């Protein structure tokens, strides 16, 4: 027995020497590989450049995530000069050449955010530390977007936010390394206000059901601000957990609250469930104080309309983009997405595709992948032909400003995709606001 122990001891001593020598070398070797270059994940002389697409593949926003991923793949295809080029034919001004980015072929890695901040950061960290991505993108939850955006700043890798609608993303939590093409709750409020006044008058009692996280909070705040400016009352604001599934316990109190308008600050499967249940509870057939009960879904998309079916008919909301827009850019994108996948893209897909192209174009303009230079190219960048008319990336908060669509669920849809009527295209000037109202600080260029 004691012999045995001794034996083990000698082995371990030898092993220890070997391993400690290897260990002493290890940290230097690895840090050199990852961090000692002039910036994080510099592609250097490599013939490829890696982008990371971090989308929810499971959870309440999985449908949006799947469509985003399709758009990313399409964007990579177009950047590498395959396919019909999509928006690269209509984007102005544009420096892309269809040979990748700065002559390097674009490859990509994917990850699942699970719509959870922790999982999203773990996945983004894997992309940055293991896969060596130079830029990553994705979204569908503002909580996640904000969490990974601050990671982007720490790591010095640019994050091109996908679908995120919270005011905080480019407001109090804005970051130098984070960019958002999508519109936000404040803009939704500004765009929706006049339409609500016209359709529902100036004396209503609104009841909010709100997803309990940053996006829900800021949307509730913005919509409340808008409706109260119209003269509406806010009866109550109730917070619901994300991914609740069953909303009946939240809907029953509305029946006796005296409210005549329900505002659903929900998104994805949450919105599909809460809306369907509201309709099942007979809210829309009710008359309160002599007024027809109305439901408003401030942010919705075609994907959600598909899920909610006829329950969404006649309901007002806003979207960032819709495939039925008739401008050159939208037509080109719908055509190329449709050829690839056989159905029209959602607004989540659109914003992700555009973000990828915008990043690639900024690299071409800068002539380098060095993030501070790329960021300077994106800040204040004005472009057109991407489906939203003339658009500008505001330098002060990295928020894109463009027209916003007010839409309504179609009464008699002609196909399973033709679900929204565009009520109004609200021009950019009406949704613009002062960048300083939300506070926040972008932080340094160089990290």
């Amino acid at each position: 027995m004691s012999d045995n122990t001794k034996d083990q001891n000698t082995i371990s001593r030898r092993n220890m020497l070997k391993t400690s020598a290897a260990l002493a070398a290890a940290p230097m070797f690895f840090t050199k590989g990852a961090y000692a270059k002039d910036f994080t994940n510099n592609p250097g002389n490599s013939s490829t450049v890696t982008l990371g697409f971090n989308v929810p593949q499971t959870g309440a926003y999985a449908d949006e995530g799947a469509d985003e991923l399709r758009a990313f793949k399409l964007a990579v295809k177009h950047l590498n000069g395959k396919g019909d080029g999509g928006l690269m034919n209509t984007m102005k001004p544009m420096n892309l050449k269809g040979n990748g980015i700065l002559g390097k072929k674009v490859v990509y890695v994917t990850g699942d955010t699970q719509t959870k901040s922790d999982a999203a950061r773990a996945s983004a960290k894997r992309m940055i530390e293991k896969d060596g991505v130079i830029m990553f993108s994705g979204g569908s939850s503002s909580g996640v977007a904000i969490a990974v955006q601050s990671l982007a700043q720490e790591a010095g890798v640019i994050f091109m936010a996908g679908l995120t609608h919270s005011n905080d993303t480019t407001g109090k939590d804005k970051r130098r390394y984070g960019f958002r093409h999508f519109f936000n709750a404040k803009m939704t409020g500004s765009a929706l206000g006049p339409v609500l006044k016209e359709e529902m008058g100036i004396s209503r009692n609104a009841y909010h059901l709100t997803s309990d996280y940053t996006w829900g909070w800021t949307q509730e705040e913005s919509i409340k601000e808008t409706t109260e400016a119209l003269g509406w009352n806010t009866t109550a604001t109730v917070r619901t957990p994300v991914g609740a599934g069953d909303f009946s316990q939240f809907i029953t109190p509305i029946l006796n609250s005296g409210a005549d308008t329900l505002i659903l600050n929900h998104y994805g499967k949450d919105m599909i469930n809460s809306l369907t249940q509201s309709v099942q509870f007979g809210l829309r057939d009710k008359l309160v104080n002599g007024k027809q009960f109305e439901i408003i879904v401030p942010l919705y998309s075609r994907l959600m309309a598909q899920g909610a079916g006829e329950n969404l008919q006649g309901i007002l909301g806003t979207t960032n983009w819709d495939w039925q827009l008739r401008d050159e850019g939208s037509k080109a994108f719908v055509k190329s997405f449709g050829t690839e996948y056989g159905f029209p893209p959602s607004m989540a897909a659109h914003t992700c595709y555009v973000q990828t192209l915008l990043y690639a174009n900024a690299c071409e303009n800068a002539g380098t992948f060095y993030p501070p230079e790329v960021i300077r190219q994106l800040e204040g960048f004005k472009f057109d032909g991407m489906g939203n008319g003339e658009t500008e990336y505001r330098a002060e908060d990295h928020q894109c400003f463009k027209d916003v669509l007010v839409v309504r669920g179609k009464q008699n849809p002609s196909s399973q995709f033709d679900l929204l009527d565009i009520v109004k295209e609200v021009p950019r000037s009406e949704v613009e606001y002062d960048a300083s109202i939300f506070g926040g600080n972008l932080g340094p260029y160089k990290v």
Partner: protein
Amino acid sequence: MILEKKRSDLVTMILFSMVVLSMPIWLNPLGANYPDLLQKFAIFGIFAIGYNILFGLTGYLSFGHAIFLGVGSYTAVWSFKLLSMNVIPAVISSVILAGIVAAFVGFVSLRRSGIYFSILTLAFAQMFYNLAYSVLTPITNGETGLQLALEDPRVIDRLFSTAGEGLPSTELFGLSMSGYSGFYFCAVMLIVAFYVSLKIFNSPFGLKLKAIKSNQHRMKYTGYNTRPYLLTAFIISGMFAGLAGALMAVTDPLAGAERMQWTASGEVVLMTILGGVGTLYGPLLGVVIIKYLENIFSAVNEAVLQTFFDFLPSWLQDTMVVIVSPFVGEGWHLTLGLMFMGIVIFLPGGITEGFQKMKKRFFTKENSESSNQEGK
């Protein structure tokens, strides 16, 4: 005899330290040697080791250990916000606070045993999770998660220097706690935690815990009051979880309520059972397997599979991709589930039992005392 025991402990510790500290090297061929995953291995290792002190030794199945993980994380982030970016105050305060919460939860839950205990802890977990989402949002920031901000006071740091332009990062006296240095910090903590666990396993206290597991009634008849021992074990394992939570915040200063969800508690149960309940190394094996699947397997997409099966003729390549793809990417849970079923059915003692069986088969002359601890 005692000296021999001490020596074998020393050997165990040295071997263990070497294995842990050399993870960046031997995990390289598996594609898992990047800092974030290595940190996860070490952090969840601590979590599982601590959990094993309760579940492995006393047999009390807790479904609420994520509470302490969450408490540890929130405490650490608040320490970064209010006191200092140095990790020492964060780690110490997290462990203490997790211990206090564990004392409270344990005091109530340990009045019952068996399934009732599990349900009580599950109820506590759900309660804390919902608290974090509702009433406690000023402290936890709800679904968005608690994050650092530029305008945080950080009183201790401000005594020595003025605030920089960007967000500060966590540090240990100037050494940044992200990347490989963060991993080595976690690894050292893991080694310390393992040492504590080893000592407890071999101590009279550990023996009493094992006695509780085998027959609590008999132990009571011999005149022992079991509850103080159980409570101590519960608090210790809660403090381990608090340490793990603190380290999660150290390597990535953000705390979200989903860390306290019951699925997180379930995960550590899975890890422990997968590796081997009541064994020293088992839980760590479980951690490595589950975290590896979660991070590497979940990122395998069809394109990766295509290249993996490149050597096959193209029709076979496509068929293989079709067959395998439901098990990777977002389907990694499926792989985990199948694996878990297989292990529970064929190796109830976890992977460690598998190793023991293999050892028995190949070295039959060694009469192993069939140390099948988990019994039933």
